[in-house]
């Protein structure tokens, strides 16, 4: 069951990411990124991270991607054209990314024996476990992030405002 779910949603993740890479229109890339993020939420659930799965759907596929699609539609972004700069990126980009993937996969599969395996319902971090750490041990960093978000809001408004 776990393996089947992992294969389905892992496959959806990879398919969405490849679609993001291959589509030339930004709105198609944004929609396929939503597929990737929602499938990742299911994978988080399989790994026993229930709060993060909910936060992934709400924050990433909800808030952030709505912001992206909103900006794409606001700026009326069209198809990207091929330029001379993209040719160099093709020559360097694909082998570089493939080499990175090869190295990482080799290391992970080599260390596979030392790593354990995930069972459905094997280890579940409930929201109360998470909040106990977050609001007791890490209260100061949590409060600092609220200041960070406040600064980000002010910065976004100041940057996007039309100057007279």
């Amino acid at each position, binding site marked *: 069951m776990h393996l089947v779910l992992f294969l389905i949603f892992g496959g959806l993740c990879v398919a969405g990411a490849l679609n993001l890479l291959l589509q030339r229109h930004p709105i198609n*890339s944004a929609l396929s990124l939503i597929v990737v993020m929602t499938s990742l939420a299911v994978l988080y659930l399989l790994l026993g991270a229930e709060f993060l799965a909910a936060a992934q759907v709400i924050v990433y596929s909800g808030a952030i991607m709505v912001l992206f699609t909103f*900006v794409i539609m606001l700026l009326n972004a069209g198809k990207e054209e091929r330029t001379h700069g993209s040719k160099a990126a093709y020559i360097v980009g694909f082998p570089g990314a493939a080499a990175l993937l090869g190295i990482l996969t080799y290391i992970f599969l080599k260390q596979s024996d030392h790593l354990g395996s995930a069972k459905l319902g094997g280890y579940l971090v409930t929201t109360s476990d998470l909040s106990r750490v977050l609001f007791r041990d890490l209260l100061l960093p949590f409060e600092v*992030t609220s200041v960070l978000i406040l600064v980000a809001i002010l910065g976004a408004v100041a940057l996007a405002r039309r100057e007279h």
Partner: protein
Amino acid sequence: MVVPIAYYLVLSAILFSIGVAAFLIKRNIISIFMSIELMLNAVNLTFVAFAHQWHQVSGQIFVFFVMVVAAAEAAVGLAIIIAIFRTRNTLDVDHVDLMKL
């Protein structure tokens, strides 16, 4: 039926590599920004997988903070993109080369 943690790590490596490739190949500034988000998500999956492996809550806390910073970064980054589009009237990164030699 069990799934080795290594499979999750390989999946996140695949997603991260696709993100790197998209970051290098894409010419539209919004698409480049989206590939950064893809890379962040891939690293988040690694954090959750290792949190499951070592039975540590702190890995998931780290993902929570990454999400918060990503949300702030998306808001500011998209505001900068709007400002660039307003002054230069293009979203192509090859045309935003004022500081290039």
